[in-house]
């Protein structure tokens, strides 16, 4: 039994486990009646990319005599980045392309599922309303019907049905739920003073414009300043930055830790201070204004994926894992396997966009030392199908519900955006595996059994919701091995990250990893940029093609 308890301690953290153990007379919640599944990306398929050319793995020799196809343009990867590139090509009238995706569905880390009482996310679940400068993304949202006029500052407003309905968020603290995220209850005068000081510092960065008139922090990153003063923030950790400002209030430290783990799956001492400030400053129009409203859908950013997917239509080919990409005279050769049959296939294209995570791109191209390398954290997401809602104490159920003192991040409610306030629901629970060596955590995540995850999730949520266990009908668990790139100190200002975005011959690159942070907006920006580069390179020789095509 010791190992089960170890697993629980690892999932919920020692202090919380101690509390619930003591409360239940030494036993933790066991819910054998709750059925569910362990889910995740197709690991064995992914490993074929890793193992190409290794003993036991596939080899290039397997492709001898494989069927060959020709297509003008190829996109590898059907996450938001690849789909955005496809959307751009379609809207520009370039229809001669194919998109190859390893999984049986597109979406990548914005995956979702449509079973139970409401569609629910497995990964990305919201999008802040873009500011007016982000013209391209506003175009997409316009197509989606997510916009509704502009406000007094000329900033776009969201459509009421897609903005998060009030109440948006709440925090469980000292036995009760309170509105908002910051635990105000019982905060001392010094806590509040430090909170104001922290806000003033964020305001300073919101106000900042460089000599060229660019803001310090924007979404997407590509519009932001690279002024030395701003980039200096990338050389300190969030923890050190707070210390430099003399901020040490436990409540503020909690808020900052929550933000780092929620956005980047990192602990504050690992996170670049630039990334921390970015989180708030890039979403605030002017000092003194609230951060931008959030758009959310029951299926999370799956709504955006569905829209992009429609534009690509039958040019999407799922269940194709690309193992190797090679440039030859006049073209690109992509070697891939049909995942279901295991049969090899060779595709020749004039040009290609690699919209794969950077660690995959490295394998596909056989990149070596000296090229960008980045770390990835693991995440676990659970969807809890509830028969009825738990009894509430304090502020009512919100879209995002965060228990203070938990190692997880709480849960979002899939029925919230459907305006359903009663009856069955689905809670999506998030837990970034931070703190220790990412590889160890990843291994441990994969070794942990369904029963351990299930009981761990229920133990974690038993503090705010002691009656939850009896209301859960089903609980599924998704494990993300390479969930997000980690914006550790120094990555975001590194030359290697900048170089990784540049085209190589007939290959163009698009993925959120190229921003060093995982955000839909960044994927979209890279997808469009890569598509535009490619279209420019295809343009007749009258325009100077050589400028975009360094061969």
């Amino acid at each position, binding site marked *: 039994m010791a190992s089960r308890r170890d697993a629980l301690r690892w999932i919920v953290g020692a202090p919380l486990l101690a509390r619930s153990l003591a409360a239940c007379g030494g036993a933790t919640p066991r819910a054998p009646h709750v059925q569910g599944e362990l889910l995740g990306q197709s690991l064995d398929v992914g490993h074929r990319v890793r193992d190409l050319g290794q003993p036991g793995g596939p080899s290039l020799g397997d492709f001898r005599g494989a069927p060959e196809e020709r297509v003008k343009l190829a996109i590898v990867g059907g996450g938001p980045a690849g789909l955005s590139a496809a959307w751009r090509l379609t809207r520009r009238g370039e229809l001669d392309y194919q998109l190859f995706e390893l999984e049986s569905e597109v979406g990548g880390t914005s995956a979702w599922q449509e079973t139970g009482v409401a569609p629910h996310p497995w990964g990305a679940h919201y999008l802040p309303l873009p500011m007016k400068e982000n013209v391209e993304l506003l175009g997409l949202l316009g197509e989606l019907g997510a916009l509704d006029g502009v406000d007094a500052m000329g900033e776009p407003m969201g459509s009421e049905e897609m903005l998060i309905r009030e109440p948006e968020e709440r925090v469980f603290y000292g036995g009760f739920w309170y509105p908002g995220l910051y635990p105000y209850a019982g905060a001392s005068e010094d806590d509040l003073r430090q909170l104001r000081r922290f806000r003033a510092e964020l305001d300073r960065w919101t106000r900042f414009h460089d000599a060229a008139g660019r803001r310090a922090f924007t979404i997407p990153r590509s519009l932001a300043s690279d002024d030395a003063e701003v980039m200096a923030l990338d050389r300190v950790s969030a923890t050190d930055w707070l210390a430099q400002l003399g901020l040490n209030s436990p409540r503020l430290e909690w808020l900052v830790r929550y933000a780092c783990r929620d956005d980047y799956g990192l602990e504050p001492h690992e996170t670049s201070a630039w990334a921390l400030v970015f989180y708030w400053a890039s979403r605030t129009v002017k000092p003194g204004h609230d951060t931008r409203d959030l758009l959310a859908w029951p299926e999370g950013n799956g709504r955006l994926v569905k829209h992009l997917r429609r534009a690509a239509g039958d040019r999407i080919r799922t269940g194709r894992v690309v193992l190797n990409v090679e440039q030859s005279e006049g073209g690109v050769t992509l070697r891939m396997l049909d995942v279901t049959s295991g049969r090899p296939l060779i595709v020749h294209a004039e040009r290609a966009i690699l919209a794969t995570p950077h660690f995959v791109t490295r394998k596909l191209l056989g990149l070596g030392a000296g090229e960008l390398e980045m770390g990835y954290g693991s995440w676990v997401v659970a969807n809890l199908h509830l028969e009825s809602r738990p009894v509430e104490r304090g502020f*009512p159920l919100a879209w995002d519900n965060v228990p203070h003192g938990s190692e997880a991040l709480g849960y979002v409610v899939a029925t919230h955006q459907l305006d359903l*306030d009663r009856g069955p629901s689905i809670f999506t629970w998030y837990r970034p595996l931070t703190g220790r060596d990412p590889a160890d955590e990843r291994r441990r995540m994969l070794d942990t059994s369904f029963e351990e995850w299930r009981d761990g999730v229920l133990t974690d949520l038993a503090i705010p919701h002691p009656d939850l266990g009896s209301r859960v009908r089903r609980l599924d668990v998704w494990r993300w091995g390479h969930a997000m790139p980690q914006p550790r100190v120094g990555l975001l200002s590194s030359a290697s990250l900048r170089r990784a975005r540049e085209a190589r011959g007939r290959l163009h690159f698009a993925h959120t990893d190229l921003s060093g942070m995982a955000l839909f907006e960044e994927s979209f920006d890279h997808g469009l940029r890569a598509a535009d580069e490619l279209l420019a390179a295809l343009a007749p020789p009258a325009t100077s093609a050589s400028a975009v095509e360094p061969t």
Partner: protein
Amino acid sequence: MQRLRRPLLFLTVLVIATAGLVYELLAGTVASYVLGDSVRQFSITIGAYLFALGIGSYLSRYVKEGVAARFIEVELATALAGGLSAPLLFIGFSQGKFFGPLLYGTIMVIGTLVGLEIPLLMRILKEELDFEELIARVLTVDYVGALVGSVLFALVLVPSLGLNRTSLTFGLLNCAVGVLSTFVLADVVPKRALLRLRITASAIAVILVAGLVYADRLTTFAEQGLYADPIVYSQQSAYQRVVLTENPHSVQLFLNGNLQFSSADEYRYHEALVHPAFARAPRHSRVLILGGGDGLALREVFRYPDVEHVTMVDLDPAVTNLARQIPTMQRLNHNSLSDPRLTLINADAMAWLRADGRRPFDVVIVDFPDPNNFSLGKLYTRGFYRLLMRVIGPDTALVVQSTSPMYARKSFWCIARTMRSAGFSTHSYHAHVPSFGEWGYVLAMKHPFEPPTQLRVDGLRFLNDATLASLFIFSRDMQELPVRENTLNDQQLVAYYEHEWSLWN
């Protein structure tokens, strides 16, 4: 006894922490039960309790000698104050006007006492444990106690014991722990004090047991005290507390303590709700009512012979069953809920509109409770009115009950403004309903229209053509004023409503 000393003292901490949280939850529940469920109400209660805990810990430094005896005294005082808290609050509310001071007074007293207990106990234990271990253990047990308290409260106590008995039972438990402490701490408390403490404890126990024996009578007495007239029916539904009272002249329905109607003047409310819309709509064959489960608006609707079909969507089956089955209600609503032309649906109106709101109706009547929380407030948002557009045709007349233009002027005009922002043309109007005061409605159509001047029905008690026209005239103190609109993502109306009604209550 001495061997068990430490475990017993930790048991004491556990009971104190559990009981402390239970008393707090009780006060919060009683407050929201008798004052209506509002987030603000709840936050204030918690804030006061946390504050009092702080005062308690602070005061503990002034206890210089006889710590053990003081500790037991504080325990016994908690037993008495906590044990009697729920019955006291109920009786206080039903008898007097000073519920606020009583509520916060009770919370402050209990909070201060609980806040005193832990520091005193730590000082007693300090002699026996090293400091860090002490803090760790006491805090753990304290947390556990709070957890046990909240679990018990939600799952076991309130459902099986009810509020009064829960309160009294925990008082007794507290008292028992006090007595136990007189034995565990016998070596550090003077003999004479021990005797005094045990006698006090017995007296408190007698009071609490007596309370338990009479708890049932107390409950009816207390609940009865909330209402001016005898209760003829009361039920806790999945959504709310439903209470019907009756006196020789009239019947009243209360939901969560809020008056829904009094038979003495409900005809004014319901005639004003239904007939202007019917006067405006050219056809009446298909009618939709959202809310209105008491069947009284429906009674007015069935005055029109050209009504062929009515769909009513009301959340709570407890209310619609009451209205259909209880003779008093049948008499009032003329048995309208058993009319074959009615299709009754128990569902959330917003969910129903989204799923099934397809064909336009000729007349739509929207009669929801006032927007005092987010899940009611959403039924007054632009998003809701846009959904409502699905059942509005070019000639459909829509009416929305929209709280009091006198007591909640901003709230009242906020609703009209929100409806206009969703694309409706509106005319606001009001009527005097003595049980409620000045009450307001919004009449709306898809296209600009003139207010109705001629009723399409005879034999009303309140309205005739002249009064109909006068409803649309507002005195200066109720006229439109600038307000923000109410949206799903920013429920301005709930804020207006809370603020405005708090000025009158």
